[in-house]
């Protein structure tokens, strides 16, 4: 058994956090939680996470800005970032990728699809 992959969930909505973290844990992920952009950047840069699930619609420092700040840091260059947004607007995906995210998905989350994207972002490594 390889070591559990570590996922950082950056999400300000409590129910989203609860639901998504539990579902990820059930699938064997180790889940870290940040409730806003600043904490997300801090944890992503120091926590040794493999994947960041970044809600884009955060107060103060929003997801795009947080992604940019993560990418600006040393450890942040290695971590995979998947943007999540309930806006689901055209151009959101491009904006997310431009901000340094590797993938993008919409809420409500299609969980199986999200798992596929996480696996892809992890580069197929088990």
């Amino acid at each position, binding site marked *: 058994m390889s070591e559990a992959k570590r996922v950082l969930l950056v999400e300000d909505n409590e129910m989203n956090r609860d*639901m998504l973290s539990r579902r990820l844990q059930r699938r064997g992920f180790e889940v870290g939680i940040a409730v806003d952009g600043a904490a997300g950047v801090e944890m992503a840069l120091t926590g040794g996470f493999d994947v960041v699930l970044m809600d884009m619609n955060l107060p103060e420092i929003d997801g795009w800005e947080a992604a940019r700040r993560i990418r600006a840091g040393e450890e942040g260059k290695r971590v995979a970032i998947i943007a999540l947004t*309930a*806006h689901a607007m055209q151009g959101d995906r491009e904006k997310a990728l431009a901000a340094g995210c590797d993938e993008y998905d919409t809420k409500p989350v299609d969980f199986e699809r999200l798992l596929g994207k996480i696996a892809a972002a992890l580069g197929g490594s088990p």
Partner: protein
Amino acid sequence: MSGRTSAVGELRHTFRTPVNHIVGYTEMLLEDLPPDDESHRAPLKAILDAAHDALTQISAVLVPSETPATETVRRLYAELEEPQARIIRAVTSLISAQDLGESAAEDLRRILHAAEQLRPAGIDTDAPAEPETEPADTRPAHVLVVDDIEDNRQLLKRRLERQGLTVSTAEDGKRALAMVEAEAFDLVLLDIMMPEMDGFAVLERLKGNKATRDIPVIVISALDDVASAVRCIENGAEDFLSKPFDPVLLKARVGTSITKKRARDRERAFIESAESVAAAAAAVEAGTYRTGSLGAVARRGDAVGRLARVFDAMATSIRAREQLLHERVRALQVDVARAREAQPGAKADAMPQTGERISGRYEIIETLGRGGMGAVFRARDSELNEEVALKTLKRDSLNDPAVLERFKSEIRLARRITHRNVVRTHDLGEYEGGYYLTMELVEGITLRELIDTRHKLGVESALAIGTQLADALVAAHAEGVIHRDVKPHNLLLDASGTLKVMDFGVARLSERSAGITEVGLVVGTPAYMPPEQLLGEEVDARADLYSAGVVLFEALTGRLPFDAGTPMLLIARLLQEEAPRARSVEPSVPEELDALIAQLLAKKPDARPQTAAALRDRLAGIAPA
């Protein structure tokens, strides 16, 4: 930060987030079910189905390319009612069964909570939508948060700013009142419990001031202090919110208050605009209206704006028409003056006939003229002590009792025509077995005399004559009177250039039972009559329009469209030949006027302009070459 988010994006986020919760928790519960647990699987699947239906609606209604209108959101709320009900039904049945275990029950309550957020209670989707005729006010609403506690202020500020609102804060009542005086706010969020000046006092001051009383106020009270909230609402507050804030309620109530405020603002602007249109109407009546002075109102996109634009255009065209007529009449005055100079002996030649009193009332002063049907005299009406024209009618014209009766009724109608371009008909009386007619005395010359003197008139003069003739016909036709004998001889021009049509109704005298065989005997010339009249057919108002066409043709060219040696030959040509174009005779005639005359001279009434008003409008639109 808010620069990244569009209004529709915000709305999508708001609506999709609870769906996300519902789907996520439901899927988890489904994962936990034993494979054979169909009794729980069915309601959970029902929840998922309903959630996906809701999502479909959200995506369909909140189209990314469109700015969402209040109506859109209202429609979405209405669409979500049904899936929401299905979710709540299924989840409540699962909760009440109490057989899924405590942790599942907790997730079911979360689903229920999310379902309730999908469509806040109290949304009235049946209320009629506000007509969105005005462009929506795109300025972000300005909200003032009044709270003595720093954290509360910042929390509210953050939340409201995320809604796209502009937020200012005040830490006490005095500061709040000063800010409201200085700046325009769309909403005040007011904490009740504050030291020194509390929320009640602030509310009282806001509502007591005319300048601020229309700003909606939402009061913030502790959850257990409903009494205070009620007292505030009784004192004019729009709504209340209890602490701790429910973000959905906050958003809904703030949004509703601002929408209402904007609707009121629009309503007030609407009323002000309508008042300015009414004022403009009064100004037109008073003759002081300046065109274009409705500028701001006319730019409105709604019905009042349309009204203002139409109104302004009408006032402008009326003014232009008056101006044009004024200029044309002035040109005509010059022609009249010249014609008078050219025939200085005209009046002296008239045979004077003095002294005789008719019907004991009209004293003959002088003879003004003699025509085919009788003579015209200047007479003094001794009862009213004013001069009138008195026209004697040849006895033999009235031998036929049917003709006489028709003539009398026509004169009764003609007496009703009151118009500056119509010679007023006064009385019909009997004189030595014959009849006479008294009418307004016009000091002037006939168009016949003018044309004979000047040969042809300029375009301006012809237009002035045509316009005034058309105006006269509009008034007469409105009274049901057709002239039947419009010709230069019956058109009087006074020294001011005003044209007056005389002998309305008199032409009835020359009508007999047959048309063509006798017309040459009765009427001096059929040159001005339309084919249907010559043929003895029923005539209507369009006969006068044909005659007006001949008058215009003659005034412009100095000749008649048809000419022949004998009346019978003339009638034959008139019935068979197409009239020549005025422009071919007189090249200075503008093309539009030429085309109009050709239409007036159409053999078939249906091919002519159909009303005198249409003729008048067409003439008004013609610019001299």
